[in-house]
């Protein structure tokens, strides 16, 4: 059984008068169990020469529905104005935008596709799925 962990720290000394210092760690388990997730895509990187709309990075038909998959997506660029828009489902509902250096981390049930749209030429996206059968 594989053991995979994710840790997140959010901190700020000046966004309010009470400093923010949140640190959390989770171990990835299969849905409803304490058995570790055991499959992964590895860290993938795609580069889009042209600005591109709704490019798939997580294909729901390749995964079992209603599971406890995890998805990490990162914009490895450095631009503060060019961005990757991460969308979900056939209607391409926007989860959010990732500017240069930004990332997201979500549980993904495998029920809906995850796509990305790039705002400029020559942009890359990095992503990884850690999943269960």
């Amino acid at each position: 059984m594989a053991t995979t962990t994710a840790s997140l720290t959010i901190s700020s000394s000046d966004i309010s008068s009470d400093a923010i210092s949140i640190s959390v760690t989770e171990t990835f388990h299969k849905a409803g169990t304490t058995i570790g997730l055991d499959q992964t895509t590895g860290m993938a990187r795609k580069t889009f020469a042209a600005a591109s709309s709704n490019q798939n990075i997580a294909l729901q038909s390749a995964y079992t529905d209603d599971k406890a998959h995890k998805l990490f997506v990162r914009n490895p660029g450095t631009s503060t104005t060019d961005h990757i828009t991460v969308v979900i489902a056939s209607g391409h509902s926007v989860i959010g935008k990732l500017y240069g250096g930004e990332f997201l981390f979500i549980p993904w049930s495998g029920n809906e596709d995850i796509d990305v749209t790039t705002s400029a030429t020559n942009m890359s996206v990095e992503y990884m799925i850690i999943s269960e059968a």
Partner: protein
Amino acid sequence: MATTTASLTLSSSDLTSDALSISATSTLYKAGTTIGLDQVTGLTRKVYATAQSNATLISAASYTDDTHNRIYIKNVGTSSTDYFTIELGGSNIVIGRLYGGDWLFIPYEGEQDIDISSSATDMELEYMVIYQA
């Protein structure tokens, strides 16, 4: 200008034959700028005595459209079987499930509600929105 950072680490020594070690850090800026986000809800805890279905957790009406906010949500329970389902928008598109101790971190444009459903009674979560006007 406030400075808030988020750092993520993903690691595993045995998920594949190549050890996984990913680190990402970003400073939380307003959309398309290098100006730090300057508003925060504070870390909010909600207790649901009864199982919920499509209950609004974060209302888009409270945020300016097409802004670059961040959301952190954690299931603070310890159950490996009870979970929150995180949903996007009026059609409640399922993003994924948070079992006990699981969390997510996403950018948020403030255009669609974030709803939750819970699988059992007496479940608790924490969340925080870091945002711009």
